[in-house]
């Protein structure tokens, strides 16, 4: 048969057009409003943190990949996304070297050590944040009440969750839920822009970039467990709505917990994962020494992902193959037991 100059490859011969880069760039797009709100309230300081964070995340990825002689994949945007996410949960006043260190640890230890995009069991942005949080000398920088004391923002300069922890629900009575929803609260550069995060997150759901299961069950998890605490003791715990609107819950539900590699892929796994993230968040808020628990809740649940992925209907299996026994092996085994 005469061969023509044609391309030959296995099926399928067409593609729906989805690309990894589009996932990352859509997430960046969805985060722009929240980021802009951070710039509006905290000005140049916020810009500085965001730029340093995204830059160092990409630099870290390029550096480790060139050291390991792997193809450099910063163009896929995943490093930029984790850099931006880390920046958005940090206060605007954080020193830049911290941002750089956190990103390097997050990308190198949290992602590339495991084999890069898709193989990371933990969300690199969360790893970076956790490193700052658990290093005693740096943890103070994450205290929003201290960090943001010098800004003029026009809303109450107290971190709602810290107030709740210290004074109980009476202390947070003067926070209007509407203000919280509109993002007029102290918090990370972008994580307090609740309404914009919600809209950005819904955009991602509609575009099919993230699946609806995790955000929905995350919010339900927060609401249900917070509701139980609240009904038990209304003086020390916040209402479910307050719990959803304050702190990192919104960014956690739509952006931090939905990272593809570190979340389950099957539907029931996702639902359980989201619910447990939400539940764990409230438990940490109520009983741990930290005012907010979203990041640790997500990190903890990340570790359960392989287990959660096992929640799946069993496939019908074909009849077992008749076992083929190597003749020589059975003979010598018999000989052995005989002797």
């Amino acid at each position, binding site marked *: 048969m005469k061969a023509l100059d044609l*391309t*030959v490859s296995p*099926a399928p011969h067409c593609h729906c057009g989805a690309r990894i880069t589009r996932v990352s760039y859509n997430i960046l797009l969805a985060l722009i409003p929240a980021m802009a709100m951070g710039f509006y309230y905290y000005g140049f300081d916020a810009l500085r943190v965001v730029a340093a964070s995204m830059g160092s995340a990409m630099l870290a990825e390029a550096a480790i990949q060139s050291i390991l002689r792997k193809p450099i994949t910063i163009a896929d945007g995943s490093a930029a996304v984790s850099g931006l996410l880390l920046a958005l949960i940090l206060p605007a006043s954080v020193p830049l070297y911290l941002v750089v260190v956190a990103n390097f640890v997050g990308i190198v230890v949290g992602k590339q050590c495991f*084999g*890069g995009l898709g193989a990371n069991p933990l969300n690199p942005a969360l790893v970076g944040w956790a490193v700052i949080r658990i290093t005693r000398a740096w943890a103070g920088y994450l205290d929003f009440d201290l960090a943001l004391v010098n800004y003029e923002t026009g809303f109450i300069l107290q971190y709602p969750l810290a107030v709740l922890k210290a004074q109980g629900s009476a202390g947070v009575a003067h926070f209007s839920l509407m203000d919280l929803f509109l993002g007029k609260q102290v918090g990370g550069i972008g994580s307090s822009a609740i309404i914009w995060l919600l809209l950005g997150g819904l955009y991602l759901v509609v575009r099919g970039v993230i699946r609806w299961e995790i955000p929905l069950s995350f919010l339900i998890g927060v609401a249900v467990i917070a509701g139980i605490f609240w009904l038990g003791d209304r003086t020390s715990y916040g209402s479910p709505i307050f719990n959803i609107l304050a702190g990192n819950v919104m960014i956690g539900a739509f952006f931090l917990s939905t990272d593809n*590699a570190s979340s389950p892929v099957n539907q029931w796994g996702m639902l359980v994962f989201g619910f447990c993230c939400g539940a764990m968040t409230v438990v940490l808020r109520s009983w741990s020494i930290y005012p907010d628990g979203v990041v640790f809740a997500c990190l903890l649940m990340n570790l359960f992902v392989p287990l959660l992925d096992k929640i799946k209907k*069993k*496939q019908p299996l074909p009849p077992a193959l008749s076992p083929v026994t190597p003749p020589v092996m059975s003979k010598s085994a018999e000989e052995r037991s005989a002797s």
Partner: protein
Amino acid sequence: MGLRSFFGILPPKLFYKDVSAPVELLPVPEKITLLWYRRTPSDLAVGVGTEVETGQDLARNGRGPFVSTVTGHVDEVNTFLGVDSREYLAVQISADQKDNFDPSLPAVEDLSEAKPETLRASVNRAGFTALKSIIRDPRVWPAIDALIISVLDLDPLSIVNQQIFRDNTDQVQAAVELLARTTEASRCVLAVPDNLAGIASKVSTGAATVAMVPPVYPNGLPEILAKNCGAGLLMKTYDTGFAGNTVVVSLEHALAMVSSLQTGRPMLEKTVTFSSGKGELQNFRVRIGTPVGEILKRASVNPQPKGKLILNGTMRGYACFSDEQPITATTESVHVQEPSEVFFFQNTQCTNCGKCNAICPVDLEVNLLGRLSEYGIYDKCRGLGIENCVECGLCGYVCPASRPLVQFLTRAKQGLSEEAQEPAGMEEALECNACGPVCPAIRLFDTESDKEDSPKA
């Protein structure tokens, strides 16, 4: 052809085309090539130079049937690596324009009275190779639970059965009845795509039920039809093809079977849909064995260098390297892609996005299977139900990392079936033998060097 709007919340849907294209009959070409899977020239009763008649069985006694579709003389006999990378025996025949029918294939006398066994023997003798891929084991014949006659096509780019249904509505009823009698199936289903409901309502099918099927890929695949038409999953096994008692026959093959019962003539022609990036779908009816180049010539489309020539559709089909590739009884469509339309897989790692799992019609964990196969861990694939994969190609179609998922899955399946045929890794182990002297548990292999060392000797 894919629905990928701004809203991505639902997985993309591939619709079967709802268009009608008249079938154009192409003349018999000068040369045809007949393919026979995994056979050697010794299975043939004819050699180079033998004169053959249309419908003549070319196989040596009892090894066939392997039917000639033209009258002429055998030009060449050789083996040939098919586009699906399997070994075929290829018989090239120079065709005369006039058909002399082999008289040894009589029509079944008195069809309405004939016994099912007689009918079945006649269908088998007529060599329905396409059917054979579904009923590979003739012993399956006596025990069919459900017979599904499908008006759906295998690929979104093919409109063969649809068109035949539109053109031959009046013959459908008789065909269904006759086939139900031939197979003695306890249930008989005519599967029709939703868009042809109007025509289907005109067919009275007697004992058979009409199942309306949404015209969405992969609903037309035999395995999915079997699953959705209430007959249970068709399950593949390694040796007997399909375990399970459902038979799915496309309408075109059903009509061909009926006409072979009536006239004694085997299936000689096949309808294929031709499509290219631009232009309408076209239906051509060609003699089985016609080189695909004849269709390209008639459609006046020339594959560009570095373009693709695809048989059997973009989702499950295979790319050819030559326009001499013959049309077989199972070829449903011919598609030509420009070089710019060619999609390239990439060696990217899985990002665990789960899109493949969400779209898989048999609900496999494709992300895991792909990775297991990539690293050669085939035995774990079996526990995840890899045999249930119908190779629909949807996982590869949606994967944002452009991973060759179907290739991974077929490789694992192939690995498993090779393992099933020979004990795993025996060959390599015998050659290396490093484990023998040091193994604390049992000595695995008794080889020459081993005997020399042993104190007994």
